[in-house]
């Protein structure tokens, strides 16, 4: 649900200046080191935020959950469970140590380790995100190209208005309308539920993914459109026209490939909105992902699980950010 207007503009010719006169050979190493450094910083930042979440609770969490009547011995055990023992620094060290060892604490409600709860649900969310992204790319690329080429015609204006309207439409409303029309009325997809293994679960995932695409496709298409418009002004596109190259080569090699990379670079940023929407869509379509897990944990005030899921969400964003940066730099050396 981020606003497109605040997406950072890293299109090919705006951000990193293209150094014309002979590339300065730079140490590839420090670029990698620098990236690794920033990943670690953001990861530590996410850990810090997840860590401070529990400290936000007004009053003593143990008394909130256990009630006033609980004995001090029970309360101490509970504070142990929440990792609230010792000084703040010790707690942070214990928390970070725990994460490195792969444990995110134990759930208050089911007394099972949080990692197990998340592990059983993560594949559902990841497959939903995977299907949505691939569907969004398949839909956004053609629309982006058409919007760029015909931007001065009625199609361009219609695209701009419908895109900003779709981006603002609440996902859960479009989900309800989708269920009403596609699932119930035309019976094209199951109303809710999920089945495990790969090919079978596509039947349950395509409708939620389509609803998510309602927001992702306009955003992606707009980013692609703006980077294609930038590419159109490039000199090498003029060369392609002047050479009278066949239309297909012209569109693919001279229009699309140079503009794909900046779009994929922004994909990492757009994933944030996708994950936010996933939470609601999973609930409406009853997909047992970490989104419903989070809602369940929030309603049951299961603090360690909430903390763990927030951390996992952060990691997904960081992971997708890094991989989209790597892919875009591999695709287009100018972004390096």
């Amino acid at each position, binding site marked *: 649900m981020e*606003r497109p207007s605040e997406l950072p503009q890293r299109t090919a010719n705006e951000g990193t200046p293209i150094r014309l006169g002979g590339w300065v050979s730079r140490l590839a190493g420090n670029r990698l080191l620098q990236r690794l450094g920033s990943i670690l910083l953001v990861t*530590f930042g996410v850990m810090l935020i997840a860590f401070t979440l529990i400290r936000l609770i007004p009053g003593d969490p143990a008394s909130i959950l256990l009630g006033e009547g609980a004995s001090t011995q029970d309360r101490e055990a509970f504070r142990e469970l929440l990792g609230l023992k010792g000084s703040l620094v010790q707690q942070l060290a214990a928390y970070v140590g725990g994460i490195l060892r792969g444990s995110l604490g134990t759930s208050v409600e089911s007394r099972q380790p949080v990692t197990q709860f998340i592990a059983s649900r993560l594949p559902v969310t990841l497959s939903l995100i995977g299907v949505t992204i691939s569907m969004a790319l398949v839909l956004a690329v053609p629309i982006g190209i058409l919007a760029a080429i015909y931007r001065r015609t009625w199609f361009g204006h219609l695209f701009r208005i419908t895109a900003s309207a779709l981006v603002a439409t609440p996902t859960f409303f479009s989900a309800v309308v989708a269920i009403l029309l596609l699932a119930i009325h035309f019976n094209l997809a199951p109303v809710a539920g999920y089945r495990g293994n790969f090919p079978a679960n596509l039947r349950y995932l395509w409708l939620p993914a389509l609803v998510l695409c309602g927001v992702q496709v306009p955003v992606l298409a707009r980013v692609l459109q703006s980077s294609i418009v930038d590419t159109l002004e490039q000199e090498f596109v003029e060369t392609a026209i002047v050479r009278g190259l066949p239309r297909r080569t012209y569109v693919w090699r001279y229009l699309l490939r140079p503009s794909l990379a900046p779009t994929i670079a922004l994909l990492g940023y757009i994933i944030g*909105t996708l994950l936010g929407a996933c939470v609601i869509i999973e609930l409406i379509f009853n997909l047992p992902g970490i989104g419903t897990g989070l*809602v369940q944990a929030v309603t049951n005030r299961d603090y360690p699980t909430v903390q763990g899921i927030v951390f996992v969400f952060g990691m997904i964003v960081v992971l997708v*950010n890094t991989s989209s940066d790597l892919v875009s730099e591999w695709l287009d050396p100018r972004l390096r």
Partner: protein
Amino acid sequence: MVGSSPQVEPNLWQRFLRLDPQMRWGLVLIVLIILLSILVPLLSPYHAERSADTPLLRPSFAHPFGTDQLGRDLFVRAFAAARLDLLLALIGVSIPLTIGTFIGAVAGTTRIAAVSYLWRTVVDAINALPFFVLVMAIVAMLGQGVTGILVAIALTNWARYARLARARALALRDVEFIQATRLLGYSGARTLLRHVVPNVYAETLAYGLSDFALVIVAIAGLSFLGVGVRPPTPEWGAMMSEGRLLITSEPWIILFPGLLLSITAISVALVAERLVGRSRGEFF
């Protein structure tokens, strides 16, 4: 350039006509919804929270939006809900806007190196985390209800404004008139308050409007999940989650609040997109 009659100050109506259609439509819808949300609960005979008629009536002249399971008139509830949602969104945007802009401006102008590292861990991490997930987590900690939501949104959204403000402040740093203030010996604070903040504020304000559309939807989303404003208070998200049950037999219970929410969000977004687009000269 071409000499013409002295420029008479165009009154509001002329300036409105000169706006392009997208802006015009957006403004018309927003004003309409605000007006209705004030008038309908006042003029309607029914009370938003008490049952008015037999439950689950179809939309009719007496009840344009029909009635819900407990017989409450949905037309009144929907516009009473509009009041609450718009108010919450207004507060939910203005607080983080001011905090974020100030922190961002300060972070942008200071020369201390440590600030950028601290910034990269804290603020970038907050912005990395999905907005809705973080707000839900904070609501879980602080407890549900209106105050919980507003604090959660403030704690999450300030980082987005801060990042914007810092980027603008950094850009301003080597602009001549800022350097000039240092030459003239202005104190850091005076430069910041008199020059940097007003400049940065213009940009974050425009961005705030497009954020307004998002915050309305987020608040409704929280209540839809049963984590925000709780029934029986009239709120779009809560009404939709109540109506979701009868989607097959009485779909209007969920569709009308959803429609109102979408129209509000879309019109604010359309207006914001023109404003933000124009003020930042950004092509989208």
